[in-house]
């Protein structure tokens, strides 16, 4: 599980769903939740929340595939198992880990010290208040 602190900078919403723009140390993220500012009082501009990214929810890539929800990092360590690889990256002193299949990892052709991108879909970010 990866956690990064962020604050809300924008909210667009329907009667049940909100798209929230969050500013964090590692970049801007969009996240959608089944709430709106009337039903959840944490949905306020400038409110601080934790963004939780599950390790298996990242798309790990060598190039930036989206202008948002992507952050870059330097590969610090790699733990390879029989089927899965856990990749740790560092960005601005924060560590993040992704769990990808060996098939994905082998295709990336990366090693310790490589610069890579983590992308996460807006529907996969969990907010913790």
């Amino acid at each position, binding site marked *: 599980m990866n956690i990064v602190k962020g604050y809300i900078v924008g909210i667009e919403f329907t009667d049940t769903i909100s798209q929230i723009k969050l500013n964090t140390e590692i970049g801007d993220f969009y996240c959608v939740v*089944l709430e709106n500012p009337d039903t959840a*009082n944490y949905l306020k501009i400038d409110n601080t929340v934790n963004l939780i990214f599950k*390790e298996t929810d990242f798309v790990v890539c060598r190039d930036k595939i989206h202008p948002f929800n992507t952050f870059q990092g330097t590969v610090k360590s790699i733990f390879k*198992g029989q089927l*899965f*690889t856990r990749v740790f990256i560092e960005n601005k002193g924060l560590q993040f880990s992704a769990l990808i299949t060996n098939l994905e990892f082998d295709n990336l052709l990366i090693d310790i010290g490589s610069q890579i991108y983590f992308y996460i879909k807006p529907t*996969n970010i*969990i907010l913790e*208040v």
Partner: protein
Amino acid sequence: MIVVDVKKELIGYKGKFTLDVSFKVEKGEFLTIFGKSGSGKTTVLRIIAGLENPDEGYIEFDGKVYFDSKKGVNLPPQKRNVGFVFQNYALFPNMTVYENVAFALDKEERDKVDEILKVVELYNLKDRYPSSLSGGQQQRVALARAIVKNPDILLLDEPLSALDYSIRLKLQDQLKKLHKMFNLTTLLVSHDKPEVFKLSDRVIYLEDGKIKKEGTPREVFIEKSISGKFSFYGTVLDIRKSDILNIVTVDINGNLVEVATTEDFNIGDEVLVGAKAFNPIIKKIS
């Protein structure tokens, strides 16, 4: 309705702190006081039962004053119509199951004993002594003894925490059934979140003697804490290492689910299992 508004200085492991609680319990309600060890939970029950005195405060049961420090009112425990179940059963070892339950009853009330023993499924064991019963059976005797007098409030001090997991689940169901059947007003002390969810209408979250949060179990433990709409409390039953992952089996109210994670857990950990509402699939069972 029961009104409790009490203060008492206590000594905890971090030093002195003041228990300062004010709450009401509606008739027929199942209220739980949740909190860590040393937060003052048990003291609240003991004060209501009259086993301990607060430094100051007021306790009222349906208009009848049990305690009022300003007017010097302090009803002794035997004059307060409360049923108390302790963690360690507290049965008389030299009395049979029947005698334990009938202990505090007048002669004319004795016919209620058979009835209640049938409800808690102990009628066949009524002539046995506590030492020949299992922990779960002993606790059912204690429960029967506490409710046979039709108490104004049933006070339960972590009554199931010494029992095995499967017995605990069974007794939780029985407790819920008894609460409804006898229209009891119940105040439970527990630190087991799944238990709190299963049994309580309302929860008071006590921390260092003060009420930190109050509401339904959902309001107190889930809402406004995590945005996952697909979130459940459960207990870790099993952890298997597989490749570089841990496969954690979690019991969520009797449903077993498996979660793949890189985090480490211990068997028995209480956990929140959650996902975004966008991620689970939903499919009609044809």
